[in-house]
């Protein structure tokens, strides 16, 4: 039997990991998934109590709550496997006879597939259901996002250029990878910091952003760069601008994938080298 990866052993470990997660952390994802229903009930009760009218939360409020829920899901990743830094619980986990690759794969599947699916599945299902049963509720979040995107794509900001049909997919992939990067980042933060796992991740993120902003500011305000930017953008036609925009999105996607892989590699080595 391979010491690196054995599918049977992985499956056994994955089932075990799922059970532990169900017992400890999936309930948080599930609770956040039920947020549309909770928001709706509270909203309707308040509305009936104060104005004696049946109203439902508008799409802007719901979008705001969804954003907050996604933020909590992302930050909560610091807690899901945070017990690995605990001497007692971490030792139990490390001493389970499964390879680092199997433990890492299970961790990634749970973090990047199971938890988002559980959360988003329940969230969108309830949101869609409420939009169907209550006319006051309006369009569902998915419907709203689609219409917003379509309006953006049809906007007459490009006179001489046609928006590529692949643009929605590029956007979608970039957003999903961005969320994955954030989730994996906070997962790593939970594996690195023994205490203050979320705060530690936030502070490092803040510090890194600050340094990057200062660096970018210094570079972009340099005379040579300023001249180059002015020359490039002033002479740009609509089709060139659109091409530049599309290229920027594509390169952002590539950069996000590189960052995601780097963070995942760091997690793999953290599991491999963690000591108690």
């Amino acid at each position, binding site marked *: 039997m391979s*010491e690196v990866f054995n599918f049977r052993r992985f499956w056994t470990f994955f089932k075990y990991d799922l059970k532990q997660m169900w017992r400890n952390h999936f309930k948080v994802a599930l609770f956040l998934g039920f947020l549309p229903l909770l928001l709706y009930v509270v909203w309707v009760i308040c509305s009936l109590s104060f104005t004696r009218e049946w109203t439902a939360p508008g799409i802007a409020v719901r979008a705001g709550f969804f954003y907050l829920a996604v933020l909590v899901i992302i930050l909560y990743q610091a807690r899901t496997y945070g017990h690995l830094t605990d001497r007692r619980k971490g030792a139990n986990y490390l001493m389970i006879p499964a390879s680092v690759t199997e433990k890492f794969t299970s961790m990634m599947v749970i973090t990047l597939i199971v938890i988002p699916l559980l959360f988003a599945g329940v969230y969108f299902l309830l949101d869609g259901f409420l939009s169907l049963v209550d006319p006051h509720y309006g369009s569902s979040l998915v419907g709203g996002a689609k219409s917003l995107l379509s309006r953006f794509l049809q906007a007459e900001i490009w006179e001489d250029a046609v928006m590529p049909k692949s643009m929605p997919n590029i956007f979608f992939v970039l957003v999903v990878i961005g969320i994955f990067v954030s989730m994996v980042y906070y997962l790593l933060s939970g594996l690195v910091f023994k205490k203050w796992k979320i705060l530690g991740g936030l502070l490092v993120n803040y510090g890194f952003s600050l340094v990057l902003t200062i660096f970018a500011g210094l570079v972009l305000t340099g005379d040579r760069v300023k001249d180059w930017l002015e020359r490039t953008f002033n002479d740009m036609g609509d089709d060139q601008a659109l091409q530049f925009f599309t290229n920027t999105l594509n390169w952002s996607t590539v950069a996000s994938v590189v960052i995601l892989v780097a963070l995942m590699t760091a997690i793999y080595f953290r599991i491999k080298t963690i000591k108690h």
Partner: protein
Amino acid sequence: MIQIDKLAFSYGSNEVLKNISMEILPGNIYGLLGENGVGKTTLLTLLCGLKKVQSGSIRVDGRDPYDREPSLLADQFYLADEVAPVHAKAICFAREHGVFWPNFDLSLFSGILREFEVEPDQYMDAMSAGQLKKTYLSFALACRVRYYYLDEPTNGLDIPSKSQFRKALMKYVPEESSIVISTHQVRDLENIIDPIIILDRRDVLLNASTADISEKLFFDYSTELHPDALYVEQTPGGTVQVYPNPTGEESKVNVEALFNAVHAHKDVVKAMFNPNL
């Protein structure tokens, strides 16, 4: 077999283990003794792969435990001095965890746990520290592995449970298994540990079987003081003295007196057991 060769380990500038060399053979229950801070827990965590050797080497059947290869992990069990409460029934915990150890026996787990007078249906996070320890001990014994590393296993156990633990250890651990028990509670385990390893800061003071100890040291329980006594202790029933055994006459090894004698006369005892030094 476990081979430890010139092992060294330190926490920053605090050197804990230095130049430790020994072999741990199958079929023995090693008692790992030492004062606080000499590195007993560190040695156990190095043996099971929770820490990385900084200098020297540890080989368990020729493998480095820090690689944490699944086949080696399935052959060993490390029981920490403090165990984690889990939000699960003991039986569920055992069923879910046990699948990773090929020789794990769930009915044996339930049986040992009942002998400890703990119900397998009890939630582990509602257990007392002693009950939790008994659950982990039962689980460890039910895994039936080749290498056991037990850190203070009798801490938190009540008097009947200590005796139960000794019985279970003798009854359920496979004969070819090696057990390393780190303990301060020497009286709890003195009848079962053999050989005895006494660690000092940066050194192994003693690593010998009780037969070897008994051959070289005499444990005298009479009231008459011996002029060559390395250690003398007043006990309620008289005295216990430890002195070099000139005739090879057998005596019952008192581990606590041995420990104190070794610490009081480190060089003498080391020279006695390592004539090559």
